């Protein structure tokens, strides 16, 4: 893989990323390199502890890698860059939703718009209400997160991230904390987003989503990328033994 000529259409470029935890005792990422072109929907799968969440969190610098390079939309992401500018362009959705419980749904979606994007209250509210329609819960604008179901909370979290009008969306196991009957409503929103051409990187084990929306599936194990393929090939003809073994465990 070439490291010298960065392709213009790669919105995320990751080179030789290393990350350890607990003073080097636990290796989370070992020499991981990855290019993601604009508009691509990438799904990352792998057993727990394989480093997939860490990889995702390195992209917006929530985790600081030990070494290696990350470039997002042409900006080197490191200690010297203005990380807040980079993060404005990267929306992130968390497993535990992480909505702000002291703010109403509407304020959750408008807060960063007002504070970071410096939009005035009316403009922010307009965008927020449009996004709540898009994720299917316009009637919940004035309630507090604690009064919503998990699926509704996660959809608000997606609306909150989209309100910044990011170029990239990261999903960190967005459906893992949900009751089964609520998974579909969140996946529908994600499918919608994928069909609009959003660049998405999702850590998820929803194989239906991978099959229907992903352009690319990456299988990680033991801190490394084991297989980088398309959903069609993954299910019909996975190259690596470890991948087939993992798929055999999660598909029944």
């Amino acid at each position, binding site marked *: 893989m070439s490291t010298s000529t960065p392709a213009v259409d790669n919105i995320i470029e990751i080179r030789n990323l290393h990350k350890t935890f607990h003073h080097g005792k636990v290796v989370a990422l070992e020499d991981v390199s990855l290019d993601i072109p604009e508009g691509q929907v990438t799904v990352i799968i792998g057993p727990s502890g394989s480093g997939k969440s860490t990889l995702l969190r390195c992209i917006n610098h929530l985790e600081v890698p030990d070494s290696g390079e990350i470039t997002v939309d042409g900006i080197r992401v490191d200690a010297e860059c203005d990380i807040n500018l980079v993060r*404005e362009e990267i*929306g*992130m959705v*968390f497993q535990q939703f*992480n909505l*702000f*419980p002291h703010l109403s749904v509407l304020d959750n979606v408008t807060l960063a718009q007002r504070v970071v994007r410096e939009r005035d209250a009316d403009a922010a509210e307009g965008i927020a209400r449009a996004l709540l329609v898009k994720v299917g819960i316009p009637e919940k604008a004035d309630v507090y997160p604690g009064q919503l179901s998990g699926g509704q909370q996660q959809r608000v*979290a997606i609306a*909150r991230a989209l309100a910044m009008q990011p170029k990239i969306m990261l999903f960190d196991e967005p459906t893992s904390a949900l009751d089964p009957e609520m998974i579909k409503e969140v996946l529908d929103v994600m499918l919608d987003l994928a069909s609009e051409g959003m660049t998405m990187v999702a850590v998820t084990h929803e194989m239906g989503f991978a099959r229907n929306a992903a352009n690319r599936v990456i299988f990680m194990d033991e801190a490394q990328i084991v297989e980088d393929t398309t959903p069609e090939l993954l299910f019909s003809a996975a190259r690596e033994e470890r991948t087939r073994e993992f798929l055999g465990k999660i598909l029944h």
Partner: protein
Amino acid sequence: MLEEQPQFVGHALTRSERRDWRFVLMAVGLGLLLLGLLLPIYGHRISAAVTTFSEGSEVSLDFPTLISGQHYAQTNDPVNETLKDVALTVEPVEDHGRSLLGWLFAVLGSGELSLHLGFVVYVMTAIAAWVVVGLLLLSAWRRAKGLRAGLIPAATNLSLLTILAVVLSWQHQFDYAWTLFQKAPVELSPGIGFWLMLVGAASMAVACLGLRDETRKDIINWWALVFAVGLLIWLLICFRPYPYYEIWRFVSDGILVTLRIVLVSFAFILVVSLLGGLGRISSNRVIRWLASLYVEVIRGIPLLVQLLFIWFALPQVFDGIGALFGAISPNLAGVEEWFADLRLDPFAAAVLGLTICYGAYGSEIFRAGISSIHHGQMEAARSLGMSYVQAMRYVILPQAVRVILPPIGNEFVALLKDSTLVSVLAVSDLTRRGREYMARTFLSFDTWILVALCYLVLKLFSSRVVESIETKSSFK
């Protein structure tokens, strides 16, 4: 019978509900009280008094605004003499409205606030009752959620107290001395405003008591204890003016000093606690270490020792620093002098000592409060592009405040009590004034009982305030 449901809570009131007798009575009471506040209440005042005693001693007092200290002069006979007579000068009042509000402004403008604090409290009680009952009535008429039931206990208590306050404000006119009233009963009789206020306050009280079923709270709540202790102090002062009135006059400026020290310190403590708490969880090792050192060291040294150090030893430290500059270069003699002249006044030393000590405890409270917010909140805020400061300001602190409030409120109450320690500096706070008075008169029991009651009422009052803030800010 079925469990009684609140009648007016939780829905906008219908037209006929709004015309319920309790709301009508409340409105009438509000109107009468307002009218009473504005109409003449006392047309005459005692402007001077000459008190004569059996052996020819004479005490002559002039009262530029309101009478004050006369009761004490009458009761506190000179040695071997008894009260013979009091000659009053009673003047009609012309320069202000003769209404209670007019008197209030006259007192506030006179610069004798501390002498007539009681009078101001009476008028304020009436005004507070008017406002609170007014809000209650407004909520019944206008609010989509119906009656604001939480206001009912306050409205009831304040209405009842207003009846008392109106009567006491009249007695203030002759310094609570019936002998004086009997000298000019016609002039000193209360005017139309007095009676209107009494009827108004009574109507409001009856209306509020009629709403008892609307609230699950006790009508007479813990606020009553605050008022009870306050009243006890007041009764002691009024009816045993010797020695309590004298003690009160001597120590009351100490209450203001104590309050000033506590409030100013507390403002600084909040800032230091926030910085200390953030420092304790900082990712920067040096800052974290410094903050921890501060907290551990200060919490390990008794407050009294810290205060003594700041007051007695800090000047030497300043001199030492100055001498150091002087030793470095003769050109720095100016700096040396500046340090040699640097002395804290007692008030600043007290505030500094309390801030440093309580800031350390507060830092731990803030650290615990901020840490209790799940780290996902910070990650979510940062992932949206917010800076650390923005994330703290808009996401973490608003949530942490709910955790921090109860313990920090307790700190405030503890600070109030620990502020007695600053009396070892030359600060004339309540405790020091009490000590000074006792040293002069040897009235140890009376002095300390009054001082203790003053602290008690301050403590009870601030506890109640803290409590109500906590209730308001708790999670749904």
